[in-house]
């Protein structure tokens, strides 16, 4: 009862200092929440950007040269399309977003193009939200690379005849600067029928996920070790530029956050320490009076800490809202992804409160040393 009155009395009496302390902590919590929010969403949008750059893994039989796959030669080895399902069923593999591929060179009107049958294969833990970046091709339709469309003089909505079978061109892809520009993408089953290789594929593409952490090399090693157990006869070839780009994007986001948050925490501590020192000096008479009335130092420290905790919790709530709303208003247009909007992360509120209370407590430690070293006699005898 008395302690509550004293804390409320102090909050009221020194309201200017307390308001400044509250505003400072609020500003810092806002910054923390803003960084935390935008970090989470910038990582997500960066992930999606890298995912949009394409699949970064090729799996082919060990006995085959990767060059045959790159050049799409007749030396490519077929294997059952169930192989992709087997890989996808092993969720311990770091690969995601599998794509079964059957590719072969074919001449169209005097031009060599790559007939490519594709079929996305989903892992059991993949959601619609985190869908495969390659969308399936419907039966009897074709998706053309821009180079293929150009040499054949075709546009979306036209028909293309392949081995006397008509396919509707549903889309002409934008320029990629890779072999994909000269591909004719069909549904995998259509391609298998046209090429007379039912149930067969000759490559698996996938996306190596970095969630295990560590260096990119160690992530590749984990994946290779797992693959050798799941598909012993297969080799993995990484599209290193895409994998590394994604790795760097993740690193940059995390390091940026850690640096900024360290800075924020340091500034918070310094401000609380400075105001704490000032408060201990200004409240010295109160200290002297209370010691004369029989108060122990634990009681006195408790009064300071409770008041700081009240301000810290109020600042945590206010800063959480300000930082969260600022992140929505300022960054939503460019950080929101197709699958996720920048929003208030209520689940982070308890952690934010605990964090600011912890930081305030640590920061109050130094002024509290000064408090317990003060001689109450000198205060009450002060002229």
């Amino acid at each position, binding site marked *: *009862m*008395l302690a509550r*009155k*004293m804390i409320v*009395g*102090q909050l*009221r*009496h020194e309201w200017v200092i307390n308001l400044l302390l509250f505003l400072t902590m609020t500003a810092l919590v806002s910054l923390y929440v803003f960084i935390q929010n935008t970090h989470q969403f910038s990582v997500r949008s960066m992930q999606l950007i890298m995912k949009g750059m394409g699949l970064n893994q090729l799996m082919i039989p060990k006995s085959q040269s990767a060059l045959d796959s790159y050049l799409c030669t007749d030396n490519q080895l077929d294997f059952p399309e169930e192989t992709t399902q087997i890989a996808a069923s092993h969720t311990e593999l770091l690969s995601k977003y599998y794509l079964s591929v059957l590719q072969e060179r074919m001449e169209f009107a005097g031009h060599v193009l790559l007939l490519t049958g594709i079929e996305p294969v989903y892992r059991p833990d993949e959601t619609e939200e985190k869908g495969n970046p390659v969308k399936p091709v419907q039966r009897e339709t074709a998706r053309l690379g821009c180079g293929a469309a150009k040499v054949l003089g075709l546009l979306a909505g036209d028909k293309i005849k392949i081995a006397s079978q008509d396919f509707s061109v549903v889309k002409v892809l934008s320029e990629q600067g890779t072999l994909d520009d000269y591909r004719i993408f069909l549904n995998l089953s259509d391609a298998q029928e046209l090429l007379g290789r039912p149930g067969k594929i000759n490559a698996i593409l996938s996306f190596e996920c970095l969630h295990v952490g560590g260096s990119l090399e160690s992530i590749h090693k984990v994946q290779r070790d797992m693959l050798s157990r799941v598909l012993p006869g297969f080799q993995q070839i990484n599209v290193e530029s895409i994998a590394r780009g994604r790795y760097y994007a993740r690193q940059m986001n995390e390091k940026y956050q850690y640096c900024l948050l360290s800075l924020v925490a340091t500034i918070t501590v310094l401000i609380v320490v400075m105001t704490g020192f000032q408060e201990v000096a200004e409240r010295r*008479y*109160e200290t*002297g*009076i*209370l*010691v*004369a*009335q*029989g*108060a*122990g130092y634990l009681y006195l420290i408790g009064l300071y800490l409770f008041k700081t905790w009240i301000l810290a919790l109020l600042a945590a709530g206010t800063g959480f809202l300000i930082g969260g709303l600022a992140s929505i208003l300022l960054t939503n247009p460019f950080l929101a992804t197709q699958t996720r909007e920048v929003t208030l992360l209520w689940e982070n509120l308890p952690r934010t409160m605990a964090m600011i209370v912890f930081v305030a407590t640590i920061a109050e430690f130094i002024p509290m040393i000064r408090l317990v070293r003060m*001689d*109450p*006699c000198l205060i*009450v*005898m*002060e*002229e």
Partner: protein
Amino acid sequence: MIKVDHATKTFLKSGKTIHAVKDFCWRALPGAFSVVYGKSGSGKSTLLMMMGGMMTPTRGCIEVHGQDLYALTHSRRNAFRRDCVGFIFQKFLLLPYFTVYENIALPLSMKRCDLIEKKVLEIAGKLDLSDRLDHYPSELSIGQQQRVAMARALVKDPDIVLADEPTGNLDHDNRDIILQCLMAVAAAGKVVVAATHDKELMGKAHHKTRMVEGGMENSI
């Protein structure tokens, strides 16, 4: 009874040793109004602080009811101050953000007493503060502030009252009120010790001791 037995208190200031109290022997008896007087810096306040359990003597001991005060643990010494000692400071030292009522009630709250309101109203009535209970210290005159400090010291009915210049800067009427109050407390069998320059206060004392440079010059 408070027994000061060869108490010495020294401070180190700028490398120099200052003897605030030197080998001081003295007794303050229950029922007596004792006064310690002397020039500023003679060690009166330091002696009061030592008797109140606020300042450990460098040498010697302070006994209260036969118990060496500084042989007690910190928490028991805190309890001694909370339960047995009422301090009156020259600068009043009222909490500025508490009302008169709350300032007077402070020692009772710390002691977790019952009937706080009754006791506060009673002492406020005695010290003519009943119509000032919801005022803040900044809204009071100097005399009223000193009476609030007096009420705060006496409200818990302590065995020992230690007053440091309790009548300094007070007008005649307020000085009378304080003096009568201290005399009444002493008459009730409590130990009352005041450090003062006030000749009127000295004139009323049962026991007067003059301090010079930390030592006792004479005691009557």
